[in-house]
């Protein structure tokens, strides 16, 4: 669906993306996870033809490079920076971006109604965007990206600066898009989001993909052991384990003072994957 072949991009002295090779498959929600400055936005920008890579090629749908306007027709982009006209209403923004993708007439108006519904902004359609909350703007930003029903939707940090309610609405949106068979590329520096939404995750750091797999496989391979904390009537201890369930079952089968009265389980997460791979935490 979307192929990066040995892509590099250097800004003056900073190597923002370093020899990146990725293949994003049709219908998957693909996560780009990494701390600020990892090169996620640069990667997205190259994928949509905003930035020319210094080296390497990008192929979309086997049709060619995104620098070709015709190829971009199948892309929908929700930029990290909110890109909306504050002095236009929500509907006017959507009408404009719809027209740019060749929608017109009844088809356009239906599309506007549909996406407004989709991001639950129908009741605010006639209001100027300037008066919207951060979360509402984020949702409209997404709506503008998908008005033309693109094959591939790229969302750059879609939950930045958003209230919990809007955040959940955006999660729901991504799930809905997946159910419709859309391909989604989702960048974030929140590992919970990647874990929750993404089929596959590429972990980026300093312009490089340092790991790429499904969430489960990444955790299995790089997450380390789970931490099982056991409290008995006398003491409390921590067990590092690959298989906490059988460990717990074994302890419960025991008797006397060794029998746990309570326990907590810390499963490894993408956070620990990142920590193990880089020696640093995702939140810098």
């Amino acid at each position, binding site marked *: 669906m979307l192929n990066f072949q040995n892509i590099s991009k250097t800004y003056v002295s900073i190597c923002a993306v370093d020899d990146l090779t990725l293949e994003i498959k049709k219908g998957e929600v693909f996560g780009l996870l990494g701390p600020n400055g990892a090169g996620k936005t640069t990667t997205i920008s190259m994928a949509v033809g*905003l930035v020319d890579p210094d080296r390497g090629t990008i192929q979309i749908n086997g049709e060619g490079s995104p620098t070709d306007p015709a190829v971009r027709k199948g892309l929908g982009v929700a930029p990290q920076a*909110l*890109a909306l006209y504050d002095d236009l209403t929500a509907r006017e923004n959507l009408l404009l971006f719809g027209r740019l993708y060749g929608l017109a007439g009844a088809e356009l108006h239906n599309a506007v109604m549909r996406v407004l519904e989709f991001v639950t902004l129908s009741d605010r359609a006639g209001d100027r965007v300037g008066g919207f909350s951060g979360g509402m703007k984020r949702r409209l930003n997404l709506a503008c990206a998908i008005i033309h029903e693109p094959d591939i939707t790229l969302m750059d940090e879609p939950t930045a600066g958003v209230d919990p309610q809007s955040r959940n609405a955006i999660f729901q949106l991504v799930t809905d898009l997946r159910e419709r068979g859309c391909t989604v590329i989702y960048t974030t520096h929140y590992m919970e989001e990647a874990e929750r939404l993404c089929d596959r995750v590429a972990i980026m750091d300093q312009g490089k993909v340092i790991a790429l797999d499904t969430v489960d496989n990444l955790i299995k391979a790089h997450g380390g052991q789970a931490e099982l904390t056991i409290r008995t009537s006398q003491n409390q201890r921590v067990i590092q384990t690959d298989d906490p369930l059988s460990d717990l079952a074994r302890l419960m089968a025991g008797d006397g003072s060794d029998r746990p009265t309570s326990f907590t389980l810390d499963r490894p997460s993408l956070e620990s994957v990142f920590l193990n791979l880089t020696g640093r935490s995702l939140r810098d």
Partner: protein
Amino acid sequence: MGTIWALARKDLKLLVRDRSGLFFAVVFPLLYATFFGYIMSGMSSSDAQVRGIRVVVVNNDDSSESQAFVEELKQDEKFDVLVAQSRVEAEDLVRKGSRSAMIVFPEGFGKTLSNPFVGASEAIELGIDPGRSMQASMIQGLLMEKLMSGFGTLFNDSKRMRSTVADTLSSIQKDPDIEPAFKFLMVPFLKSVDRFYTELPNTQTFAQNGESSTGSSGGFQPFAIERVDVVRASKDENPSNLDSAFQITFPQAIVWGVMGCAASFGISLVTERTNGTLMRLRVAPISWTTILASKALACFIATTLVAAMLIAVGVLIMGIKIHSFLMLLVAILSVSVGFVGIMMLLSVLGRTERSAGGIGWAVLLILGMLGGAMMPLEFMPESLRQFASISPIKWSILALEGAVWRRFTVQEMLLPCGVLLGIGLGCFVLGSRIFRIMGK
């Protein structure tokens, strides 16, 4: 084309919703046109502070007196004199607005100068730029004052002079040694000098009321000044061209309006670059050319509409007479093209909205001042006026005035309109190149 129009419509909508943009594009020009029009209409024509009135002189008299007079005129701070070889050349300079007035000294002028009492020579022709017709009386008065000042040292104090004349007269009449023939000549002469002083209004009166100095009867009239028409004779009976100050202020106001539009759209490009909407446009399946063409189209439509609105107000409410509506249309379209280019260049003057707006307006104000958008070029000091031609505003005003009251021919319209089209295209190409580089 559909997408270009969709984008242009968006920009026009944004302009209408932007209060400050709308103020500079519409409200301010309207205020300017009406307010300054009224002020200029009421402006007194006697201005003692005048300096450097740009006149072009044609001397058809080859006497040393007339040449000396032209020299004297050159020395006078009130005048800025250019000597032309022919009347045609001089007329042309005035009609095109590069000189405020033309003065033609007739043959025999030197004789009148050396002896005003021989009677007036042929009339001195004074052709005044119709754009300065409100200053016509003043210019005429100053010229008359200058003519009379040749005798000023001699006749400065008319009372004292009259007593001197009376003394001389009586001593001549009494003196037995004086030849009777000489007495015969001198007595009537001195009597006529006496009468001259009795009837001569002081020179100040000439200066303040030059008009009456031509037509009044009975006064001392050594020099006749005849006002001639320097504007192309028209087919209609009424040859007067500039009959209201609004004919000056409305073209200026149009230029203010298009400057407002250009600034507004130039800044909006910077805004789109900084707030990310430009990125969204670039991601859409449209080309750079479409994006920039839509901005140009929106700016072009806005400037043309603003100009049309101002003309409508001028014609319908202020009663401005328009020489040629067709030429006015051509002028307005040329001005719009010029300012579309300027808009594009303004958009690359700053990285942020604020810096682009600040630098942009500063540049526009300087160009506006240089080009005569604040005060007519003729009133500006020479040191500034020589830079006027670098200002697109000068060419805009000239094109508009050419169509409104300067009665330009098609050929004469070519220069300002051509310059504007050239500025528009040049600036647009340059600006869009830089803009694309900055957008990357």
